[in-house]
């Protein structure tokens, strides 16, 4: 069980990561390694160099920045699960992180790695979409910020360029009366999301003010369910209103189908889990 040979560099700062990426165009960043190393062991990936960002001090940690919460790219799922500020303001992250993989995966896997990898069955992309996160990335030309809604481009493809490093994931803190929920249908063998739905709502005067739904697993890339959002915004979130909005969940998705779950079944799951996630998010907002 040996990956193909590669050169190994342990970066100590963000500028050094960028420099190493420029020097090694066939190289790849190594964060928690829990998507990349399994692919390398199976020789599905053979990068010529690995640039280990695991010990770059600025990349790790969770900061309360007042109206947002800033999560460093190498923050692990377990770091997220331990954070009180996350549990209080962004319980959606806590809920979803707790169902990623298993204890060992959560101890090593990082939020930045999950975003950059953009596995169509990963949980956190849906969460980032529902919470309207943005990605801070640094490259040779400096820094830029990409909204989650533009970050996930396609299967295993993001808006990151090969010479850029994702440094922070920035989550705005919810304002007003809000509720959040994650509903996942986990693959019984792999644990990845066959379908995962992250829902965020704010209520004003008994009506839905803001609603964001992120769906992963069902399609080739995690996406906002815009048709669901449009159907529910401004409405009183009755069970019936939620159900008829959730009926639009599979619209706009390029559905995945495989031996475990057909395209039709995934579309069905997307609708059912959207309804469940929205119902729970509304209940949480009502307190």
């Amino acid at each position, binding site marked *: 069980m*040996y990956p*193909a040979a590669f050169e190994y560099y342990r970066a100590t700062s963000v500028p050094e990561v960028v420099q190493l990426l420029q020097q090694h165009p066939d190289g790849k960043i190594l964060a928690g390694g829990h998507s990349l190393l399994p692919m*390398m062991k199976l020789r599905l990936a053979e990068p010529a160099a690995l640039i*280990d960002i695991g010990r770059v001090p600025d990349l790790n940690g969770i900061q309360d920045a007042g109206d947002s919460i800033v999560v460093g790219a190498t923050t692990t799922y377990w770091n997220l699960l331990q954070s009180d500020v996350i549990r209080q303001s962004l319980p959606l992250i806590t809920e979803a992180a707790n169902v990623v993989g298993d204890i060992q995966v959560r101890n*090593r896997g990082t939020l930045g790695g999950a975003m950059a990898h953009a596995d169509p069955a990963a949980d956190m992309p849906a969460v980032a979409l529902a919470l309207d996160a943005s990605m801070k990335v640094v490259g040779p030309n400096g820094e830029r910020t990409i909204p989650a809604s533009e970050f996930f481009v396609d299967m295993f493809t993001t808006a990151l360029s090969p010479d850029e490093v994702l440094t922070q994931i920035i989550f705005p803190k919810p304002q007003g009366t809000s509720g959040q929920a994650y509903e996942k249908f986990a693959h019984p063998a792999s644990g990845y999301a066959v379908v995962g739905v992250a829902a965020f709502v704010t209520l004003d005067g008994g009506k839905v003010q803001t609603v964001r739904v992120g769906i992963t697993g069902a399609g080739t890339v995690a996406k906002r369910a815009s048709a669901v959002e449009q159907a529910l915004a401004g409405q009183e979130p009755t069970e019936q209103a939620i159900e008829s909005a959730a009926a639009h969940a599979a619209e706009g998705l390029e559905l995945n189908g495989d031996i475990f779950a057909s395209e039709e079944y995934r579309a069905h799951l997307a609708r059912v889990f959207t309804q469940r996630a929205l119902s729970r998010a509304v209940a949480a907002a009502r307190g």
Partner: protein
Amino acid sequence: MKQQITVTVNGVQYTSEVEPRLLLVHYLRDVLNLTGTHVGCDTSQCGACTVIMNGSAVKSCTVLAVQADGAEITTIEGLAKDGQLHPLQEGFWEMHGLQCGFCTPGMIMTAYDLLQKNPNPTEEEIRHGLEGNLCRCTGYQNIVRSIQYAADKMRGAAAAAGGE
């Protein structure tokens, strides 16, 4: 190009020159001859290779030895102290938590992490905690009982030591 690493395993410090592609599990088994840590799959799913690295359970088949440079590692060989089995080992013995024993080192190291994070887990929490460890023999019932046994014993010991 080989890289020098220094790793502390079960309290003993080792310095070695390794290829970057060497996985931690092969470093433990083939370089240090600590063969209690097993390899059960090539897809990072079975958990047989689980060890404690800097206090947390990790699948050592999904960590490079170079990533473990400077780390403190505990393997199954490091749990018994002064000829005295660790409560988890005793639990697996008493409650028949194994049949062929292939998964057992990984089960025990994962349970070690689980109990340090949650000393009094429910049965459901134990099962959730073992999601990354596969057993082809036992059907898990007795593994859960073994961990409950250890949890009870460890809490008793903590209470006796005035810890709680």
